[in-house]
């Protein structure tokens, strides 16, 4: 079937098997292999991308369901030489080792920082109301859908904490 996807600001027309997941559309049909496949079952977060600004597991949704959605992948937020601040933070704090979970971590964190700014509470939030302060515990809870078997969690939290603070200071 023919579908049109809006990815990182580019319109892409694809002829796909209707069973193709959004993740496989990116990886197998568009050469956008930055989004990783760790489980294909929504269990690891390696495939996290943004759809209309919200983070989703792209392995859990079919490409055919995303006509007209605004899709952002890791390739769309920075490249070597022009990295996003969060990407630079991951390098500086060594928030990865093998790098396989990393694009998913970064996409997830990108959306998570905005969720917190919008006041979404989490399991560890002291209250369901009011502003969210992104403590290490809040960051860790909100990032627990992104597994890292290399276990770079200490650096991941540091990189996100720093990016969230920079984002806050820029307001």
């Amino acid at each position, binding site marked *: 079937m023919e579908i049109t996807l809006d990815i990182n600001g580019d319109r892409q027309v694809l002829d796909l*098997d209707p*069973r*193709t997941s959004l993740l*496989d559309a990116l*990886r*197998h049909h568009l*050469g*956008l*292999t*930055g*989004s*990783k*496949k*760790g*489980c*294909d*079952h929504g*269990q*690891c977060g390696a495939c996290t991308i943004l759809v209309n600004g919200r983070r989703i597991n792209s392995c859990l949704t079919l490409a055919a369901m995303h006509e007209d959605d605004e899709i952002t992948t*890791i*390739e769309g937020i*920075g*490249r*070597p*030489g022009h*990295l996003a601040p969060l*990407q630079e933070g*991951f*390098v*500086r704090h*060594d928030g*990865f*080792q*093998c*790098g*396989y*979970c*990393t*694009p998913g971590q*970064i996409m997830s964190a990108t959306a998570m920082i905005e969720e917190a700014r919008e006041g979404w509470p989490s399991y560890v939030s002291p209250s369901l109301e009011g502003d969210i302060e992104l403590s*290490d*515990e809040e960051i*860790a*809870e909100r*990032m*627990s*859908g*992104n*597994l*890292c*078997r*290399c*276990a*770079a*969690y*200490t*650096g*991941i*939290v*540091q990189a996100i904490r720093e990016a969230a603070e920079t984002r806050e200071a820029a307001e």
Partner: protein
Amino acid sequence: MTTYLKMDAPQPRHLDETAQGVLGAPQDRPEGPLKVSGRAVYAAEHELDNMADGFLVRATISKGRVVRIDEASVKAMPGVLAVISDERFLRNPAQGGAGAAPVQGAAEVAYFGQPIAVVVAETFEQARHAARSLKVEYAVEEADVDPETASKVDTPDRRQLDQGDIAAAMGDAPHAVDVTYTTPVQSSAPMEPHASIAEWDGDRLILRGSYQMLKFNRAELADSLGISAQNVRILSPYVGGGFGSKLGIAPEAVAASIAAQELGRPVRVVMARQQVFEGTMRRSETRQRIRLAADTEGRLTALGQEDRVSNLVGESFSEPTAQATHFLYGGENRRFKQEVARVNRTCAGSVRAPGEAVGMLALECAMDELAEAAGLDPIELRKRNIPDLHPESGIQYSARSLAACLDEGARRFGWSERSPEPGQRREGEWLIGLGMATAARANVLSEAQARVTLHPDGTALVETDMTDIGTGTYAVLRQLVAEMLGLPSEKVEARLGDTDLPPGPGSGGSWGASSSGSAAFLACRGIRQMLATKLGCTADELRLQDGTATGGNLRAPLADLLTDGPMVEEGHLVPGTTAKEFSQASYGAHFAEVAVNATTGETRVRRMLGVFAAGRILNEKTARSQCQGGMVWGIGAALTEEIAHDPRDGHIVNRDLAEYHVPVNLDVPQIEVAFLDERDDAACPIQSKGIGELGISGAGAAVVNAIYNACGVRVREYPATLDKVLAGLPAL
């Protein structure tokens, strides 16, 4: 030319004399920008012209024969190109460093989940659907799936040792513990599933795969296919984690290669996550009886570790459970015994720190029990039992900073605030406890070659088939060469993961950085000699810094010494007698603070510190990450990780990441790591030792010891899940 060294004697510390000052610095990984931007391309991510996709088919019996594969059941499905089942298929992956094919054949089934066929189609979706629709008939045989009741049990000679009289020593001692610990099956679960793309060019096979030890993998793949290793090239520049599971060539590589040859087009086979759990390697479960006896001073008089592990028939690997116990503590009466039950379960192989990862869980908890029995602080007990000479072979130790690690850790962690009495500290519904354990990991050096090229423009290239599986090889080799040749790190490029490059031992056994690093060091020494000759001084006088050479009152930019073109040198390192003359290991000390919920028995790790000494640290940032990663594996082993085998047919019940619980971000506090300055001259010419597996050794025991200190419940059956803790807590 080649600069060669066999490690037959401790080596001088050349790297303490160089001028650049970059080695050891916490520099960023050079490949970092590619990884964080999604531009590092992993095995499955190459799009080759006309590539087809294959999907593996697994056996759904535990033992027996494949009688018929009904190809017609899927051949007519859209896009299906072939159903292939071949006698060259691998029953299971090769063991690490095998260098030859493992047991082959797709007709005999030895475990549930064994790959028995591959279905190839034009697209991934078509292949997956067809593979899952394929009808297979079996002749089922009775299987042994329980290691405790298996009918065939081996006792490998290399794992039995009797010294003195342990029974008498236990009977005579004022303090003794005789306890049995169990650890469950665990899985490496690297985030990147195993994947291969096979492409033939005439007789020549190119495999883009996700592998740790390419020199061996090339030989294994060639042997599996019955072709010459000269005709095989493997590329693994980026590997999405391995942890042992990618040490040996695995079924997907051989299936892809056979399919690609048969179809005359490139074929990609990626294992589904469930197939990674079932069809690669597991860490064997262990049952370990630990016996410790001590005199009135707390000095060990007896030490025993007797274990039962398991594996498939025909596999010589057995978990080296007692590996560190042999050299870590004294005690003249010693007994080691191992039984290997032959079972129809997923193959058992090396998973991060084979031996120490599980052996230390038992030993270090038993030491905690002995400390309590003897009325000694657990740190003091350990310090009193650091032997002068190896308690079995009598050889000397190379650099060993264990006591310093224990002391430094105690100081940093605030150990003195721990109450020896359990259950003394409470915060609301949480009981707080502190625990510690020793870390030790045997150090191994392995043959390695590397090529270094110094260009007239002041850049350098280091090349080897060594891999970087997250370990920091790109960073470490770059810094080492920069240090030796007096260049800023940015001027050095490391090219890795290609069997066309000089062979190294690969990533495994924590030997990669020391072995390949030493080879690169030797190559640089050769180049330094050439530069010294050109400049007109001796190699000892030569000083290289920021692209300038000085020595013997002479001074020249490197470009002036390279007017004849680049200098190229290979380094070749071979292990020697120092491996036998010295007991070599990396050491450390773990400290954990946990909170145990008095109502639910849930454990949360609140603080964790590791202090380590592993010879020269080559990059403080990547070394720290390695240790942190290992410590988190310790948290997983202590609290959550456990593969469950169905008792009826042995199949893995929790074969995905939702049910096999690796630690997630919220399970892990900010982990603190400190390194002690150390040089190990007997280890290798760069004085470094292995670090990739050190962090896991003992880490889980520190957590479980902290649970005991928090609430007085001694869990001897890993993992210490809340049900087990709760069972020991007083009723509310």
